[in-house]
């Protein structure tokens, strides 16, 4: 099977959850679409590694995580202005786009977590990856996964209590 064929099969099997995962990390729909496409194109580009990959799902999440983290890293250098803000003078009104998301306290709480805590929590609780798979996806040790998950849970719990009050 060629790299393209493999990429197409993986795309058909995983593009939905990979998109949703990336979207939860970057919170930008268009960017998430781009990164999802890029995740599967990386399969073609790095296809020579395929024989070494024993868990394709974890590998995909690893690529997706790296791409999302890179995008977030670049994103820190600039800041989007809120909708309907007036000249950055602090007179910003409510953001209707944000309102939609903030109705969901879970999402709001999740969004307060830094990406490197949000990622393991999502992979564990939402996408049901094992600790080993998360370790592969995030390129950290299983012990580090446990530590991060514990901290992520605590951060989420506090944030959720905060936003749902």
């Amino acid at each position: 099977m060629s790299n393209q064929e493999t990429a197409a099969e993986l795309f058909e099997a995983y593009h939905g959850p990979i998109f949703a995962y990336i979207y939860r990390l970057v919170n930008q729909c268009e960017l998430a679409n781009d990164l999802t496409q890029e995740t599967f194109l990386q399969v073609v580009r790095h296809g020579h590694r395929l024989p070494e990959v024993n868990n394709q799902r974890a590998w995909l999440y690893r690529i997706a995580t790296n791409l999302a983290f890179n995008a977030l890293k670049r994103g820190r250098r600039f800041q989007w202005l809120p909708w309907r803000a007036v000249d950055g003078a602090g007179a910003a009104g409510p953001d209707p786009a944000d309102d939609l998301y903030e109705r969901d306290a879970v999402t709001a709480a999740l969004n307060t977590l830094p990406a490197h805590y949000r990622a393991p929590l999502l992979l564990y609780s939402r996408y049901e990856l094992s600790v080993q798979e998360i370790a592969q996806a995030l390129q950290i040790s299983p012990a580090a996964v446990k530590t991060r998950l514990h901290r992520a849970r605590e951060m989420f719990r506090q944030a959720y209590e905060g936003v749902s009050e």
Partner: protein
Amino acid sequence: MNRHHQLEEQLAICDQLDAAARARLDEHIETCPTCRQKLVAYRLMDRRLAGLPDAPPAPALRAHFYAALANSSAFSLQPSAFNLPSSAFRRLAAFGLQMGLLALLVVLAWSLWWSVPSITTVTPEPVTIEVPFEGIKLLGYDAALDPLEAGTAVKLSLYWMAALPAPTILSVVVQLVDDNEYIIARVEEYVELGKWPGGVEATIHRLVVPPEFAGGRYRWQVALLDPEGDGPLEFMAGEEMNEGMVVFGELVIEVAATITPTRPQPFTLAPLATAAALDFAPMWSPQSYRMWSPDEAWVAYWTVLAQDRYDYSQDRLHFLNVQTGQSCPFPGTVSRRYEAGERVGWLDNEQVVVFQIHGRGWRGRPCGREWTELEEPLETYPQLAGLLSPDGRYLARRRLSFDDNVSSGPYGRLQSTVTIENQMGDVIHGLTILHALSYEGLINEDGRQGNAPEPGYDFWLNSLLSDQAKWLGNDYLLIHAMPDIGPLLLHVGHRNIHVTADLFQRLDLANDYQGAFSPPYADGALDPISGRYTLLLRPPSAQLDSASPEGAAEMLLYHSATGTVELVPHGAAVNGRWLAIFDVESPTSPTGSPTYIVRLRPLDPPGNDNYDSYSGPEWPFFNADWSRMAVVAAESGRISLHGVPDWALLSEWETPGYRLDGLRHRSPSGRWFLITSSERQGGGEGLFVIPFSDETADE
């Protein structure tokens, strides 16, 4: 870490513990109310997170991915033949087979004849045909053709209605075939159908009938094929259908033989303005577009009275009506010094604002007597401080502010804010960027250079200039290169912004970017018909190497329709439908002259090699839509206007007594082409105005 903390950490993954570890944890939980409480909270958390609705990907993601996959050989810069995955191919093949079978039923849907003997003028006569096919209907066509003769371009508008589950990229083939089914002209272009279910979508196709063909009757065929089919398909109209292609019908047209054009007699051109020296913001300075009134009837220029062209002390600003030749001087003193293009701005077709370098400004009519000194700052005139979208609905502006707290010697920090405002002045979109700034290029009010700026000292910094950004249609604002960030594309209707820098990242050019002299640069263009945009991305290495074309890096061409990227040579330019590659061939002998080459090809499909080439002893200049091209022969004083891409000579002018070695400039829409020319007998310079569009060329 004590036992409690060890076990507390395991709470986070209690579902995946092995039996022994789980037993130890359960034992601890029995005696530890804190952990018990946490476990309940974590389980609830898992349920909440598991119940999160997954946002669906964009419907077009699949089409974009497969298009990108098909181009993955270009994308990954590896020469590899593309084979569709077997499962995907099976689906597409089945799709194609259905298309083919249906095609047999719908072939020969229309056949129309025109019988004008030599040159056929096809009356613009939209027809209504309905060819149902898998949710796609070709409703009709608009054959608003020029007289059709060999060597000329033919334009065909097709009107579709598509009800598809998702926008789908397909290929439209338009071709002319003779009685022996020999294809004499063919164009194949990607179209995305199904973007507006139930709505009419138009695609426009243009093909050139090769000049070497004799006159005769040819059949014009329109077909649709699935670009993700198994490789290129042959076109076998009316006979055997190949998979993935449906022929909507054919139309018989008559093509006249090439008529050898009689060389147009050159017009004699007289300068519209003369002086010892003339100046206007040159063509390569996009700010110079501000010198034109919106209707392009007036343009501002300077006469230089000082002996030295770079002595600005005796500059005089003038306004020239390029239609009537009327020219009037501005009564005050305004020099070209620093950003000459920013000294003038038009409020409308009649009112112009003139600014001195620091602050003072006047408002009046180009040839009026009343000039009113302005009391208000530049920001009062948003059309001067920002870029209006073509439809005038949105205004893009930039604000800069200096952070004095981090100012250190010749460096400081700058907050750059780009906003898009609607007509009510509301900021609907924007971003702020913090970046380090060298004061080296800043000139203070007292003329000193390289110091921290004084607050509000330099208004032009606060404007968004047309060399920094441009609108691609009415929806996208492209910022060519933001410091530290690279190019950005802002979409008015979306909260999220597509960051074109990601493209560099994708192509593993991040390392190239980091540590490079300046961020990558992007230019772009929008096809107003399809709404698709194309970005031409120049990596930093290309900038660094630009002085040596031989070693210059290639540029990246991004197609939004397919999400694909291809490499194109350095020296490329795009206009929405065409890609041009500018190149210079060195002379073969020491006394020879270089040859300037322009290779032109349709942008779609990505990676195509359908180039038409022009070569000549001078650089040509295109008009706005690249339908015309001017060539200026400096020494002979001749200016010729050619069609594109057939390069046919359309008009020619001569400027007796002048040498065309001066500045060149094109009006914003490309209607006019300006050139200053030195008088052969040393008497001074003249300003020539050349009509540069279909409309004006015929006048």
